[in-house]
């Protein structure tokens, strides 16, 4: 009985998989069919689901402007939390991204890449991606966010270990005029934005935007500081935040000038260092900016060229107050870190040979300023001690990819990139992928790739004083993905992957020094079903399992074994309104004190207007709808005087957000 039931299951599955591809005949055969007959054929209408346009050798997850609105996403961190297999961790300073064995607390920066319109935008000191209010973009300016899992060093070089987040900004025509926006949020949050966009008859297109956000924040309670000497654990008025953003894009005749600027200042209510005093101001400021010029041209029908020049700017400012300065009179610590860089990229796409798409290019990058300044001040503000460190780096890179279409079903993708930095040995990052499309609805992709991360300026600074110097870190990734379009309404994506990291820096007691000898391994499975129905209902559900080992072989901290997501958006009130419901499950994970932190599930609800009413449109969101009490793994493995651990941080309960837009 058991066997026959099993057999039936298999048969049903085979029949399902066999029956559906049969609906799409090979178009190759259709060229033989008389046109008069073709006109009688029914078509499977193109899916309303966002499709990946690039032939990337992995299963790209896409979040569109529609999704951003339907689910009330306000930061890239919100977007990432809705993507299969990913999560973010907030330490009340920054949001950090994790997934696929990345996201350990010492893993915070420099292992993913954030591209905005094709430009790598992480800073040149920490290589951090800014996913919260310190990020460069207001999400209203985003057309789509693509998450490309799998390593990206074969195309983009250093840092793309876990994957690439590719943000595509909207065009002037999408606004076609002036838009004013106001937002109010819990904890005294309030934001203003003005955006102007236009497409002109001469082909020129412009998009300009400015925004300002201010938030009072909360008076948060931290149990580890619940002593009379430390204000009973209450950090009062320490959570304020403000951010200012500018964005501009101008394009005409293949030329595009684009620039962005973000200045975020935030109080840090936790006590991030064992030396600083709880409930005293710990202020951080992150300024990110870039200006870029790009020219794209079709040199011939077989040769396209894209040239771009990018200038980047980053500044970090911090003021902190020490708990005990009786010995050295150094009450304040001040940090001024500055980064400046430029890069030039020349890329060619050639299609001279039938079946081949060749992409080749050269990138020159100069990190001409990587400066760290530490100042220690007396209670009266006098500089008692100063320390400066400065770095720089020149990198030359060459890359070549060939996408070889063997026949209608098989495509081979071969690529490699060579990166030579003046302070490191040159490195090759290869990638090999095989793509198989047995029918119009099914795509299989198998890939093997290697990626690396150059030690960034902060890494280089951190190991000064040790015998070791910061070294590059590597990852080799293999992945098998399958995507199947059951119908125009339903799509399945599944992947199995394995990441092997090597040359991670580890501390060896015997040597009393660091050594680039650590290795670790992560494997996992991700499954997703997406639906888009004609009545306007959109759904997405995913489950991800990951087994991540730390360098010492134990469980990797802050790496949940299970992640589940469910997104549902539905038109209401005769398509006047859209409701977006989002549920996220994060499985148990280890803290830095090897404590197991319980799983949690969150729900977020958003109502947004589908149509404009005299130019007005609005959104209303409730995050953490059921006011769940949950905790995030903190980066603190030390205990304050109370002896109470602080390896986890309590996150926000229910919060509200309201946005009103007015199009002139």
């Amino acid at each position: 009985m058991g066997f026959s039931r099993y057999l039936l299951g298999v048969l049903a599955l085979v029949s399902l998989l066999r029956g559906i591809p049969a609906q799409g005949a090979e178009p190759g055969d259709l060229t033989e069919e008389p046109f008069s007959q073709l006109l009688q054929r029914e078509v499977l209408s193109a899916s309303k689901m966002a499709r990946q346009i690039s032939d990337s050798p992995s299963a790209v997850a896409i979040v569109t402007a529609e999704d951003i609105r339907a689910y009330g996403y306000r930061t890239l961190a919100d977007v990432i939390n809705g993507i299969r297999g990913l999560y973010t961790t907030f330490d009340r300073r920054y949001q950090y991204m994790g997934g696929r064995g990345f996201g350990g607390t010492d893993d915070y920066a420099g292992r993913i890449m954030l591209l905005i319109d094709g430009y790598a935008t992480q800073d040149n000191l920490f290589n951090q991606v800014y996913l919260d209010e310190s990020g460069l973009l207001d999400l209203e300016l985003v057309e789509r966010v693509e998450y490309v899992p799998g390593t990206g060093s074969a195309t983009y070089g250093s840092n793309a270990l876990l994957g690439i987040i590719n943000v595509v900004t909207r065009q002037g025509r999408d606004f076609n005029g002036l838009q004013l926006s106001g937002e109010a949020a819990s904890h005294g949050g309030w934001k203003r934005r003005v955006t102007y966009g236009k497409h002109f008859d001469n082909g020129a297109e412009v998009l300009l935007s400015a925004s300002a956000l201010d938030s009072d924040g909360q008076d948060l309670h931290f149990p580890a500081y619940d002593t009379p000497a430390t204000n009973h654990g209450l950090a009062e008025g320490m959570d304020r935040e403000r951010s200012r953003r500018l964005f501009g894009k101008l394009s005409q005749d293949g030329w595009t000038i684009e620039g962005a600027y973000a200045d975020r200042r935030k109080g840090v209510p936790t006590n991030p260092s064992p030396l600083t005093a709880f409930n005293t101001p710990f202020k951080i400021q992150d300024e990110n900016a870039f200006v870029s010029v790009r020219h794209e041209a079709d040199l011939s029908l077989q040769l396209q060229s894209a040239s771009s020049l990018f200038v980047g700017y980053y500044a970090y400012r911090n003021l902190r107050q020490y708990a005990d300065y009786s010995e050295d009179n150094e009450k304040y610590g001040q940090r001024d870190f500055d980064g400046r860089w430029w890069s030039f990229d020349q890329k060619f796409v050639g299609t001279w040979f039938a079946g081949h798409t060749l992409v080749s290019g050269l990138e020159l990058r100069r990190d001409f300023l990587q400066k760290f300044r530490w100042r220690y001040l007396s209670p009266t503000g006098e500089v008692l001690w100063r320390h400066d460190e400065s770095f720089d780096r020149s990198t030359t890179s060459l890359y070549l990819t060939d996408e070889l279409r063997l026949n209608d079903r098989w495509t081979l993708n071969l690529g490699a990139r060579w990166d030579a930095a003046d302070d490191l040995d040159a490195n090759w990052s290869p990638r090999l992928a095989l793509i198989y499309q047995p029918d119009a609805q099914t795509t299989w992709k198998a890939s093997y790739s290697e990626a690396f991360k150059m030690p960034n300026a902060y890494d280089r600074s951190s190991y000064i004083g040790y015998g070791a110097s910061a070294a590059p870190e590597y990852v080799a990734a293999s992945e098998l993905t399958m995507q199947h379009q059951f119908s125009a309404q339903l799509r399945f994506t599944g992947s199995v992957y394995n990441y092997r990291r090597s040359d991670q820096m580890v501390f060896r007691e015997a040597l009393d020094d660091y050594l680039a000898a650590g290795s670790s391994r992560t494997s996992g499975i991700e499954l997703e079903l997406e639906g888009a129905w004609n009545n306007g209902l959109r759904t997405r559900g995913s489950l991800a399992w990951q087994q991540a080992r730390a360098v010492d072989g134990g469980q990797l901290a802050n790496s949940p074994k299970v992640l589940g997501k469910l997104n549902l958006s539905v038109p209401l009130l005769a398509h006047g309104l859209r409701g977006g419901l989002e549920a996220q499950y994060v499985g148990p994970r280890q803290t830095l004190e090897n404590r197991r932190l319980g799983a949690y599930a969150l729900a977020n609800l958003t109502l947004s207007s589908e149509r404009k009413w005299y130019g007005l449109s609005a959104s209303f969101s409730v995050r953490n709808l059921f006011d769940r009490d949950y905790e995030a793994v903190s980066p603190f493995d030390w205990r304050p005087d109370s002896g109470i651990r602080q390896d986890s941080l309590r996150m926000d309960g229910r919060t509200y957000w309201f946005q009103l837009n007015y199009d002139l």
Partner: protein
Amino acid sequence: MTFERNPLRYLAFLLLGHLSFGLRAEPVPEQDMKAIYTYNFALYTQWPESDRTHFNICTLNQDEVGLAMRKLEGKRIHGHPVAVVRLSSLDRISDCQILFIGDRATVNLPRINNLLGSEAVLTVSDTPVQNSVGIVIVPDGKRLVFDVNLERCRQAGLKLSSSLLKLARTVVAPPN
């Protein structure tokens, strides 16, 4: 009847299901159909003599149809091997025999027509811009139909065969 009791019955059911499935013409994915339509427009259209080695079918901001068209590579149209080109700018549009203009490029139609002038380029689109391109493909129920703007085609010096015009849903003739 429960299938679990009688697997053979279930098998027969499946087999019959598949057989009946194979008897009628199966629906074709929309993007693939647009690519095949475009191929047929080419077959039924006469271009002035040129010394081009390839028959260039270009797409402008329509990557999905562009990808579907790659399956046409290797075919021959009027004796020339088909080359499918996904263009990113207007620089080379006059090198194409067919220019398939996607949704996001239609704002540039006045410029495209200005640049093309009387070049022998058949413009095709899947957005309703009948007045500005040679042929538009439009959905009609579960099928795709097409409308021809003869004036545009004549400006480009193209001759569309009468059998193609007969298959069109509507033909807009130039004013006499």
